[in-house]
């Protein structure tokens, strides 16, 4: 987050401290700002994509900000995060560098992965965002492995792995849950259920009336379901899971409902294709995690409309600067292709 943005939030938090709910309010403001920032970044990417300079697939998080921000707000600096192809929100929510993310999408050497990975392979070690990769389910065991290290060394760091409903159909999901339960690993499995795997609805992939939370419980984990678009609910659910993991009481599976606003991959809306209805989208749009929370905070006098306008201005500046950074960053050299095959 930009210095100006951070300063704005700090000022706002300080002013609110006399209301006697200090921690909650501070967290609320930064969660709102976090979601808004993600939304604005993703929309900026969508707007510029047709310039054909971001030459890699982008899977945007628009509509799913609540889960990323709520979960990461419950994690500490030493806690790890792994994710999938749809990782922009998780990367940013964990504190990942915005400039480096945009530069990465532009394939520049200043990108977080030096242009090797693009949107689908992000990393920011400083904030323990340890990697996102696009094989469905691929990072689920890797996250459990990071938790395994923590367990082996008797540390109390926790690892959260984000994935979608489709990942729960992969064998590796069950294998990992089994081992995590067996060893009581400090890992939180976060399923972002947006009900679609590209164009395939849940109904052609998973039996009707079967609850993924029941599966997790049958595998020996704690399982919790929640409204992924209620950032406060996500925060609270995750805080419980984090406490459980840190106190050696093992892994938790979170099943959080949400909705992907735009197409699976790319900047456009595609409800006209017919695999889902415009009505369904509009219903979910009413449950937008960002505007819902704005309403809540305004109603509670935590933020005003003016605050939000100012915040948007700050974020807008930061986003502009990030695209500028990406534009100025050089492309990697030809020789770079042979480096870092082996460490």
């Amino acid at each position: 987050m930009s210095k100006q943005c951070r300063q704005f939030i700090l000022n706002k938090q300080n002013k609110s401290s006399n209301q006697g709910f200090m921690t909650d309010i501070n967290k609320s403001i930064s969660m709102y700002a976090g979601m808004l920032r993600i939304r604005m970044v993703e929309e900026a990417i969508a707007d510029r994509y047709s310039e054909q300079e971001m030459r890699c697939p982008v899977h945007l998080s628009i509509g799913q900000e609540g889960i990323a921000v709520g979960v990461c707000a419950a994690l500490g600096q030493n806690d790890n995060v792994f994710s999938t192809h749809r990782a922009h929100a998780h990367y940013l929510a964990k504190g990942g560098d915005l400039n480096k993310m945009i530069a990465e999408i532009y394939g520049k050497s200043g990108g977080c992965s030096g242009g090797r990975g693009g949107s689908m392979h992000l990393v920011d070690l400083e904030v323990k965002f340890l990697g996102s990769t696009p094989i469905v389910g691929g990072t689920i065991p890797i996250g459990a492995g990071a938790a395994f290290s923590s367990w082996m060394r008797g540390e109390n760091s926790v690892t959260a792995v984000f994935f979608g409903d489709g990942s729960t159909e992969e064998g590796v999901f069950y294998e990992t849950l089994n081992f995590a339960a067996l060893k009581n690993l400090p890992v939180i499995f976060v399923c972002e259920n947006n009900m679609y795997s590209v164009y395939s609805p849940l109904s052609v992939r998973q039996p009707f009336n079967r609850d993924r939370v029941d599966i997790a419980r049958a595998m020996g984990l704690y399982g919790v379901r929640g409204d992924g678009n209620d950032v406060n609910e996500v925060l609270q659910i995750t805080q419980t899971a984090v406490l459980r993991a840190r106190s050696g009481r093992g892994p938790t599976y979170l099943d959080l409902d949400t909705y992907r606003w735009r197409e699976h991959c790319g900047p456009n809306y595609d409800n006209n294709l017919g695999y889902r209805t415009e009505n369904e989208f509009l219903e979910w749009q009413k449950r937008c995690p960002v505007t819902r929370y704005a309403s809540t905070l305004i109603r509670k006098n935590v933020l005003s409309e003016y605050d939000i306008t100012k915040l948007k201005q700050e974020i807008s500046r930061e986003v502009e600067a990030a695209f500028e950074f990406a534009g100025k960053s050089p492309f990697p050299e030809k020789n770079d292709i042979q480096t870092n095959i082996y460490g």
Partner: protein
Amino acid sequence: MRQLQFNQAVLEATDQCMEKDPSVYIIGLGVPDPKGIFGTTLGLQQKYGMKRVMDMPASENAMTGIAIGSALTGLRPILTHQRVDFMLLSFDQLINNAAKWHYMFNGRMKVPLVVRAVIGQGWGQGPQHSQSLQPILAHIPGLKIVMPATPHDAKGLLIAAVKDDNPVIYLEHRWLHQINGEVATDMFQVPIGKARIAREGRDITIVTCSYMTLESLKAAEILAKDGIRAEVIDLRSLKPLDEDSVLDSVKKTGRLLAAESAWQTLSFSTEILALVSEKAFGALKCAPVRVTFPDVPAPTSPALANHFYPRFHHIVNTARKLFGLAPCTQNEPGLAADIPLDIPDKSFKGPF
């Protein structure tokens, strides 16, 4: 120097690595069990405890991913497969993640993972318990592949693999587990990426690895009686490959025979032939040849195994043809071509 069996050398390497470095742990199906993975893990759990010496659920893909995740975050796992055939289940994690994690995040993280797997042969192990698979693994950028053929190299290469910050696949042929050899007691390394000249010669280069090194050396003994002095190069590492050792030898001898436990098509021997054709074509006096399995799954019946596994007399015959000599016959002394091909030698009684 004292003699040690190959499997004991693997065990000693593991023990020394675990003693020296607390971040090393070993995990695999049956690691702590009474047979100790063909004797290679016996006693480890008693010494290092259940946290560092672990059995695991039959979940090869996830366990490989978990090993990778632990390697990214400071541990040094040794993951074992009692048959390389089981490794197939873990190819997503191995190839999509282990091999690429260092590269696709621009060198930010390392994957110091060792995967030990046993290559099968014989006693009717059959199509799904006899595979070798090193050609498929060697195709993948980012993996290192080592295949020791002697107890000395078994120890030195495993120690090198554990110390290497990259994913190293360590393939051990089950017919090597009982062989004896001189092994130093200290904690030494054999460099990964360096071949060994197992026997010097001037007339033909035999490039080989793992168990076929033994067959190649037996073949070289017999060829010597024909006046053919064969140079046997034991590759030891397929990736990174010691190209210079191969090329220098072929430039000296002018003839190349590659012998390998692998199906013919796209065997690693094929890569050796391509390498020599590209970089030492002028030195060749005749076309290079390969001695490998035929392109069929390994049959179970001992009668069929006789037509599947190449042994020293196949290498001898293939080499003799290059010199215009007749193939060897049953009556030749020292040939022992009447050993059934489904056992390494007469001492093997089955069942495992």
